[in-house]
């Protein structure tokens, strides 16, 4: 099947996980040893690391989780989670803008930052997809 070929086999999941975990460890080490000079290149390095993590999260989303993954039902799951994540992103910006308008001071943590927004979108996408796959698995084991 065409969709199945696009997906990354589960045995290659270490690539996605490495893309997520290694940059975080690298960032923590840089921070601990005070290698990040935020006046010059520190912010750029942080942004690069954040982009790599986001890439890892996307690869995690297109991993083939089960043997059936790639068929019509999983296609629908991916569509629903992707659509809901875009909707979530737009809603997230709207809610924060309203909070900003009524000046609730606790929202002031760089919420309009695009990296944070992209992280939230991918997080939501993975969460919705994961919960749908989990529900399906539970139903299948019940039926068995």
């Amino acid at each position, binding site marked *: 099947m065409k969709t199945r070929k696009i997906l990354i086999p589960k045995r290659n999941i270490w690539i996605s996980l490495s893309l997520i975990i290694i940059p975080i460890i690298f960032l923590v080490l840089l921070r601990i040893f005070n290698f990040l000079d935020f006046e010059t290149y520190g912010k750029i390095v942080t942004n690069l690391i*954040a982009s790599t993590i986001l890439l890892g999260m996307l690869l995690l989303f297109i991993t083939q989780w089960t043997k059936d993954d790639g068929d019509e039902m999983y296609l629908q799951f991916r*569509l629903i989670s992707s659509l809901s994540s875009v909707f979530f992103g737009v809603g997230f910006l709207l809610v924060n803008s309203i909070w900003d*308008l009524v000046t609730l001071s606790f929202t002031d943590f760089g919420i*309009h930052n695009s990296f944070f927004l992209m992280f939230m979108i991918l997080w939501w996408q993975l969460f919705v997809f994961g919960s749908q796959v989990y529900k399906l698995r539970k139903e299948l084991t019940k039926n068995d």
Partner: protein
Amino acid sequence: MKTKSRLIPKSKMWISLTIIFLPVLILIFLKSADFHELLDFSKLSKITASISLIGMFLLFMTQWTKDDGDEMYLQIRLTAVLLGVITGITTLLVSSIFSLINWLDFDYTHYNGFGLMFFILLMILSNFGQQIYSLSKQREE
């Protein structure tokens, strides 16, 4: 069909277009009428941008053709959304690299979430539109 019932009928497309353009027009009017001295303009523009983004999303969820809602359109929508997400991540990665090599002497570190979301939705809509256009052209032939 289940998916078809979730889509917004084409006859109600004016709602999406109004949600996109009306806030922008109001903002331009407020700006030109010097109301921006009385109001917090940056906060107001954020709300306007968010509402316009909702309008763009609703435009994506519009039933464009009679067949829209079937399996093929489902696949087209999925491709468009995935492409949008990939574009978002690539934009961030490329602009980070540009900042690193100081390309064009532009400050790419100043990233805005609204700009990114607009770019993602624009990419989704253009890809979706393009696919539908090529499909209708194929059918005509």
